């Protein structure tokens, strides 16, 4: 490689406060292609994903590997190719959380079969649908009560 670029260290933190792009849109929100990943240090492994075009729209996400210890993901190479690389190290994986408030309690629930993949180098993102066996789905759909 003839390159003078110094490779910066790449980690999920690399995309903090950066714009990521869902080229195919986020299902249900076709107009919102670009989002900013906002995370204060004390919020880790959770992160807010704010729509760029619609400042009123945001999603709460959690790092899938922090949420479930044994998290494994199988994704078709062709999907990864379109996000810019096949190297698993280039990807951060998040679950979108549903926040519900009832009787003064807040519950966060993950949707484990539709994780968001973000290529932390290219900042291309996509929500993929994976098939999980029922026990896996149950484990990963865990609720967190506050």
């Amino acid at each position, binding site marked *: 490689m003839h390159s003078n670029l110094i490779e910066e260290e790449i980690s999920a933190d690399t995309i903090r406060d950066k714009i990521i792009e869902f080229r195919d849109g986020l299902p*249900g929100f076709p107009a919102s292609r670009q989002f900013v990943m906002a995370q204060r240090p004390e*919020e880790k492994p959770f992160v807010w994903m704010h729509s760029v075009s619609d400042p009123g*729209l945001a999603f709460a996400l959690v790092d899938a590997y*922090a949420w479930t210890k044994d998290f494994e993901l199988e994704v078709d190479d062709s999907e990864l190719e379109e996000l810019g690389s096949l190297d698993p190290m280039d990807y951060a994986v998040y679950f979108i959380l*549903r926040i519900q408030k009832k009787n003064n309690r807040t519950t966060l629930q993950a949707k484990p079969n539709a994780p968001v993949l973000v290529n932390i180098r290219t900042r291309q993102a996509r929500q993929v649908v994976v098939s999980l066996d029922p026990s896996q789905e149950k484990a990963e759909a865990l609720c967190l009560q506050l």
Partner: protein
Amino acid sequence: MLVLSRKVGEAIKLADDIEITVLAVDNLRVRLGIRAPRHIDVRRIMPDAQVVEANREAAVVADPAVSNGILSKAATAKNQEE
């Protein structure tokens, strides 16, 4: 909707310059090869109505007064769990 049958290796053509070839088929998945000029934007249409529904339920109207602090509380709760 126009419905066509094609075998693996066969293709269809749209207008003069877009070619779609069926590359492989298994139980649940069809692999398509698409040859089109650069300016043609090719995108997947996400079919999963459940995902759409789940995303809509998860969408938060970013009201700092409401959402502020939730994720740091969540992080504290998650850390205590471990």
